[in-house]
């Protein structure tokens, strides 16, 4: 167990290191820095711009700057936002919390919906239910996040039954429970959009994985022995399909994080999405890169959790490790 986890952890750290190198390299590609535009304005003297660059360490050689940035990331600062004049983390972390608040429940709910449906469709292979299922998932694949988000916005505007954006009502001053209810109410539409938007690939994957397992000899044997239908599906077949399913868990999370970026912008959910967009327009590179790095950390952490789940559910990995 320890050795397996250490190996996966090592891999995760390698990935993080690689991504940080990639992103830092990317940052250097940017023409000029935050102070280049200040130079153009003419109201700030070149000497004071030079002084500012020295103060922020922008005149140091590349490797030194990389190490300083890495050090800042390691201390949880994620670099420095020039536009807001504060450590990027102070801006990033509350936004990241809101993004997680939205995406994690969506991830869980879409899996909770997808697994039983997929198992059911696979068990009725070729039947009307299965055909309906295939048709439905194909149609779902066409429903992209942008369409869904705009439709949800239209619904909120037309009916007035849902808030059109934000995370809390302005006049929210109730107790803890009332505040939570308020957040949940604001979450409803973006969450529905995200779940519907990310459901199709999971549904299809669950079905095809289950089909493969149901084709195998031991399932036939169990069926021949008169094992009940539900026991067969959920006790014997589903655990055997756990490995590819858990592998997809990481992928579905990647899709959800990417999709939530757009949904957050359209539905003005105060997550990382709107902030990244603003930072790009303001050329606030540390903030942009910090957000990309943070989203990568979420993804890698999710994959690490998937690895642990795999270890728990798949005996083959336990023996090989």
């Amino acid at each position, binding site marked *: 167990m320890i050795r397996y986890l250490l190996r996966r952890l090592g891999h995760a750290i390698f990935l993080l290191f690689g991504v940080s190198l990639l992103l830092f390299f990317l940052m250097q*590609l940017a023409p000029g820095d935050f102070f280049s535009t200040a130079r153009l304005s003419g109201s700030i003297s070149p000497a004071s711009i030079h002084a500012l660059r020295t103060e922020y360490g922008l005149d140091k050689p590349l490797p030194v700057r990389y190490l300083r940035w890495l050090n800042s990331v390691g201390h949880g600062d994620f670099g420095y936002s020039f536009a807001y004049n504060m450590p990027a983390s102070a801006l990033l972390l509350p936004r990241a919390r809101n993004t997680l608040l939205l995406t994690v429940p969506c991830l869980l709910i879409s899996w909770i919906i997808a697994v039983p449906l997929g198992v059911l469709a696979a068990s009725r292979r070729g039947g009307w239910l299965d055909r309906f299922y295939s048709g439905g998932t*194909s149609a779902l*694949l066409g429903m992209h996040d942008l369409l869904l988000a705009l439709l949800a916005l*239209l619904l909120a505007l*037309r009916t007035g039954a849902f808030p059109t954006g934000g995370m809390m009502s302005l006049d929210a001053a109730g107790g803890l429970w009332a505040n939570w209810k308020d957040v949940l109410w604001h979450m409803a539409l973006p969450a529905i959009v995200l779940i519907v938007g990310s459901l199709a690939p999971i549904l299809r994957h669950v079905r095809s994985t289950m089909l493969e397992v149901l084709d195998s000899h031991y399932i036939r044997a169990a069926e021949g022995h008169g094992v009940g239908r539900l026991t067969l599906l959920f006790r014997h077949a589903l655990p055997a399909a756990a490995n590819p399913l858990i592998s997809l868990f990481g992928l579905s999370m990647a899709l959800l994080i990417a999709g939530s970026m757009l949904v957050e912008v359209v539905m003005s959910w105060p997550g990382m999405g709107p902030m990244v967009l603003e930072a790009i327009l303001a050329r606030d590179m540390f903030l942009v890169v910090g957000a990309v790095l943070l989203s990568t950390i979420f993804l890698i952490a999710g994959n690490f959790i998937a690895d642990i789940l795999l270890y728990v559910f798949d005996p083959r990995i336990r023996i090989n490790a």
Partner: protein
Amino acid sequence: MKPWRKLSLVTVLLVGIHLLALLAGFVAPYNYATQDRDHPYARPSRIHFVDCAGKFHLRPFIYETSLREGTLNNYIEDCSQLQPIEFFLRGEKYALAGLVPADLHLFGVPSPARIYLLGADGFGRDEFSRVLYGAQISLFAGLLAAVLALSMGLLVGGVAGAFGGWVDEAVMRTAEIFIAVPWFYLLLGVRAVLPLEMSPLSAFVLVVAVIGLLNWGSPARLVRGVILSGRERNFVQAARGFGAGRGYLLRRHLLPMSFSVALTQMALLVPRFILAEVMLSFLGLGIGEPFPSWGNMLADAQQFHVLTAYWWMLLPALAPVPVFVAYHALADRLQERLQSAN
């Protein structure tokens, strides 16, 4: 034989969609940039067969509309201005498929009246025409980016699979790093270092290049897998035994083996990349005015008053739906064939 028939149906659909985009100038009644300042946010034209007097016409027609006095968005049909819809009529000049100069349009009404099948935007530009011209940009941006990503994948994956050893190790580790970043965040990160303002043509090239070049990881991984297993096949071993070099093996045996996998992968990548372009342009980071893309046409619809008062501004969001469904269906059929071939 059944998969074949399904494949051909999907192919017909896809070819049709792309032809429609290519021939946008002919199918669209107007140019994407032609404005009509008298009809901002005009409603989709009602197509009539029966006129105000209750008389039936065989040829469908529309009524010209004008703003109701004192309102900003309330159009009324003028019963005295009947405009028959004509087919194959001469109108605005355009270049067919960007090459052949022409002025024949599939349908339209005699100018100066204008027909708005999907309504008009705030400048009085015909949304139907803009969706068609936008398809040229959005569809081909996705297609070109997918070709780019796959060529990179074939090249890099081919080299990694054929050489093995530390080359393979290094290449695949790098691919993992690229895959580890959530793709839309990576796309935005790269977009952030590029200039915000640029000419539409360079914006198009840039969007295609960035989307294509960032997504080489997973195709490369797939191609490498095929090549690694292909190296163990008997006929490849035999060719090697006869003294075939690495380059020859790759060119003659290994890469052709991975083409079908690459093609299936492409059918999956194209819709994703179309969506990437749409999302970038929607956020104002992709292709800009006056050129229409399915993304930047929707940027207006984000404003609350536009969305509530002019619902037809939402219609361009439906344009990618059949494209995505068709491409995914194609990917399914190709996958089926791939599996039955093995």
